[in-house]
């Protein structure tokens, strides 16, 4: 019996949470996968019920890394939360900074200078590249190819982190963006260094793809595994590479055209089957598009200030009101929803975490598969627990 048949039989409506009955003698083995399981990317637990090796129930358990970030942000000024956003998705601090800065800029109506927009795009796409490279590396690692593919990815990531360090002073906790611009300007040397790094990235993607894309074991383990249908993906709020792997053309860089993304020429790769293999392949293709955007941005970057001269960075009190700002982070739609009551702190500070919401359909994707495939399906979602639990 294939997975879809099982699901159609047991579901009352196509968007209801999936259920499965045991086909055997009714005796289920319950396994707590995590919070220390090496494949859970941090402290995360899945309570899995198994019939033999087949998954018949899977309940994710969250909260091991919960520190009530949203509450902490309500107690401090707008600027004071900026370094804290680095710790959300700590693989991609730049895009977290960006989403938060965008929301505050919407709330206060601030403009961002041209050069700062270019720097944001350059750093954002470098972030996307290293996120996709390492997430593929982790996925392959979980498939059993210990070390080597992951280290290939980390070798490139290291070059990008060196660029971050040179510009911002930190490899990961960059605290780079400000409301109305960026904290420091990039020197001509930095831009030259970045051009050199970007020029070498295409070779890495080619190599990575040649090693992996037609690998027999990878294909056997991932094709047809963890299929996510497009209607369910949209209904369940799945975003980012996962949504596009299911064949839904929705990239916020294209849809909203925030910042200056409407100026760049890039394509949105789409998957056909929505399985683990498509999610892997989409990330490879998105890395190529990122390189294209990086080359255009590094060519066109204008001179000028990186902070708007009228920008209010600290000590400002936005008018009462609210704003929702969202960007296409490497993991999906990252949004910040801010409500101001006219004070110097936000009255409500809400993060829309793509990692958490992409896990909504984890059970649906895993039902009927072997327990060994759960590790791959979970890995293909690409989450970071700092963002899931906040």
């Amino acid at each position, binding site marked *: 019996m294939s997975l879809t048949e099982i699901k159609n039989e047991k579901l009352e*409506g196509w*968007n*209801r*949470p999936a259920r499965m009955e045991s086909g055997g003698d009714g005796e289920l083995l319950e396994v707590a996968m995590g919070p220390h399981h090496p494949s859970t990317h941090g402290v995360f637990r899945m309570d899995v019920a198994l019939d033999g090796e087949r998954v018949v129930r899977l309940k994710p358990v*969250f*909260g091991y890394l*919960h520190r*009530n970030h*949203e*509450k902490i942000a309500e107690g401090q000024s707008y600027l004071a939360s900026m370094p804290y956003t680095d710790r959300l998705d700590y693989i991609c601090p730049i895009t977290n900074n960006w989403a938060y800065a965008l929301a505050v800029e*919407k*709330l*206060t*109506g601030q403009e961002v200078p041209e050069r700062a927009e270019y720097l944001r795009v350059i750093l954002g796409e470098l972030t996307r590249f290293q996120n996709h490279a390492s997430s593929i590396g982790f996925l392959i690692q979980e498939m059993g190819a210990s070390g080597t593919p992951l280290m290939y990815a980390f070798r490139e990531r290291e070059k990008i982190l060196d660029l971050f360090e040179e510009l911002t002073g930190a490899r990961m906790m960059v605290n780079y963006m400000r409301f109305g611009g960026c904290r420091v300007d990039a020197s001509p040397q930095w831009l030259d260094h970045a051009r050199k790094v970007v020029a070498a990235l295409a070779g890495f993607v080619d190599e990575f793809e040649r090693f992996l894309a037609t690998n027999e074991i990878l294909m056997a383990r991932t094709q047809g595994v963890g299929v996510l249908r497009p209607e*369910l993906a*949209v*209904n*369940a*709020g*799945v*975003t980012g590479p996962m949504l596009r792997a299911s064949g*839904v053309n*929705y990239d916020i860089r294209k*849809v909203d055209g925030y910042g200056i993304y409407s100026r760049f020429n890039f394509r949105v790769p789409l998957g056909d089957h929505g399985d683990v293999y498509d999610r892997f392949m989409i990330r490879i293709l998105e890395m190529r598009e990122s390189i294209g955007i990086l080359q255009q941005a590094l060519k066109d970057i204008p001179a000028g200030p990186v902070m708007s001269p009228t920008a209010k960075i600290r000590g400002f009190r*936005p*008018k*009462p*009101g*609210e*704003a*929702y*700002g*969202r960007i296409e982070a490497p993991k999906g*739609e990252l*949004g910040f*929803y801010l*409500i*101001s009551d006219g004070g110097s702190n936000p*009255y*409500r500070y*809400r993060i*829309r975490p793509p990692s*958490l*919401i992409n*896990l*909504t*359909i984890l059970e649906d994707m895993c039902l009927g598969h072997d327990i060994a495939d759960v590790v791959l399906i979970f890995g293909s979602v690409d989450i970071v627990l700092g963002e899931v*639990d*906040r």
Partner: protein
Amino acid sequence: MKSVEEIKSAIEAAIPGAAVELVSNPSPSGQHSLRLAPECAVAVAKFLRDDAELALDFLSNVTGIDWPDSLEVVYHLYSVTKKHGPVIIRMHTVNRTDQVELPSLTPIWRSAEFQEREIFDLFGIIFTGHPDLRRLLMWESFKDHPMRKDYVEPDDFEYEPTAHDEVLKRAQAHKDREQGSGIREQGPTTA
């Protein structure tokens, strides 16, 4: 895309008796929203999702808010097929103590499943019709809702490794308070 006023009249035309109120947003973002009466919220949500012109098939973000006199939930809706949005709908509870039920929109949009659980956990809004309403981030035996403005943090005394007079005094006060309030009668459970 239709303006908020047009969406309001479209809802009122499609669902007779639906109480929809326009909430204007004075901030430069200009994101105005619609306040729905909880009784008609599920019907309105279904209309917003299935209407051919609006096609708001993607519920992006669900936020809980603790206002001084009520609790509120805000839903940010987008359309993947039409590529427009956001349309913002909100509902509020009668008060913030005993009448905190709101209808769940999880049957309309699955993406609300975890987000409504989180709001139930951190704000204490009870979503009727939610398929699996459990705490999401705090442990099951936890009492209280940490995101509420009047939440009092536990006066944990454990961080100081060497106990001396001051710490011991605080520890005793903590113990008394715990026993008095019933918060944290038991530690984290495995459930």
